[in-house]
């Protein structure tokens, strides 16, 4: 009876590890799979990486300077599915929606004036019937030139 109890406890404990991804693993994934996409731009050197749950959103707020060209890259693990992103102005108006543009994983633009923007990234809800919500690494990389 006791043996069955600890066996069950062990399986339950193991199941907790399935959706868990460490920050270090995420950053290693980003460095290996994503950072090269910033070329020929220069990365702004900041890590905006998270372990995102399916169906959730993360956002990045930053300002863009007049006269500069930028690349916004959204890099995610396959488990998150077809991730999409929007770029919003200060009034939360959508200036770019990847869902309406063949779902690219990056977007280049020129800033004619200095302005604050928000990049909002969403993972589609999981289609799995499991009670455990999958999660995966996601990073927003910004390059400039």
């Amino acid at each position, binding site marked *: 009876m*006791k043996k069955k109890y*600890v*066996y069950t*406890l*062990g399986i339950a*404990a*193991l199941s*907790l*590890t399935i959706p*868990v991804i*460490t*920050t*270090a693993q995420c950053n290693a994934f980003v*460095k290996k799979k994503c950072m090269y996409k910033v070329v020929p731009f*220069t*990365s*702004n*050197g*900041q*890590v905006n*990486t*998270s372990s*995102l*749950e399916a169906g*959730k*959103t*993360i*956002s*990045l*707020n*930053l*300002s*863009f*300077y*007049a*006269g*500069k*060209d930028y690349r916004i890259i959204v890099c995610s693990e396959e488990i998150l599915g077809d991730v999409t992103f929007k770029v*919003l*102005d*200060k*009034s*939360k*108006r*959508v*200036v*770019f*929606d990847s869902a309406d543009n063949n779902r690219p994983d990056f977007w*280049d633009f*020129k*800033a*004619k*004036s*200095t*302005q*604050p923007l*928000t990049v*909002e990234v*969403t993972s589609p809800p999981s289609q799995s019937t499991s009670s455990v919500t999958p999660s995966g690494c996601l990073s927003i990389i910004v390059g*400039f030139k």
Partner: protein
Amino acid sequence: MQMNLKFTTRYASILSLSLFLFSCNNSTTETEVAGSDTMQAKSKNPKAQEVFYSIPSPIETISLLKAAGAKYNAAYLNPIDNVSKYTSVTSKALNLGTYGSDLSFTSMFDQTQESMLYLRCANKLASGLGINSAFNESTTNRLESNLQNRDSLLNIISDSYWTTDAYLKDNGQPGVSALIVAGGWVEGLYIGTQIANSTQNKEVITRIGEQKLSLENLIALLESYKADNAGIVAVLNSLTELNEIYNSVSTAAKATETSTDKKNNVTTLDNGSEFTLTPEKLKEISNKVSQIRNKIIQ
């Protein structure tokens, strides 16, 4: 009995390991991102799982100053001899930021010898913070191999910043990383105000005014980590005082317009913003930035 104890110990170990892995390094904040119904589509996502605040890197800021006509002047930089003064984690982090900014400045202006000196300062402070994967001997070697190629130099410096940020966040020290960002931003703004005051270059002065936006994000970034790191509070208070001065900088802006050059597939964003900085306001900002920066490097 012995068999049961063995099983219990094994599965208790698995449980402990699972709970350790389940703990999350990232702080999460939720925020309302929803818009209201208008003619133009607004974001309807109700809440973000996590919100990041990013500010332009010193390389970007310095490149703007250079494009505006700024010239190199070593007098603007934190003296390399100061590096031995920084013994606390807070002062090391802030000044890793200042020296990183100075390194960006010397590299941008092709000052190769000075770049190596500032790299060594950054290396020393990074080592002091336990960051051995950035601004290290390998970085030194890469820089030395690329001294004649400014773009490569700047990419290497940028990589080092990213590696530093990643290391600190991987190791549960995002507050230390935020201090590095703050130190770098203050130094960049200090250099900019020194150039603005000595040249009265209108474009440089405009760039000083534009820093209002970055300051707001920097304050938000520091706010999110102040509970993790006591050293952040003093810096945050100083930057909040600076923000009060910036509050009265007028920033005329309208709704962002997009235009796309279909031939080259490039989109341009324009909200028509103008950052107006009076001479009095420039002086006020310069004095406050000098005060903050001198406290950081002393």
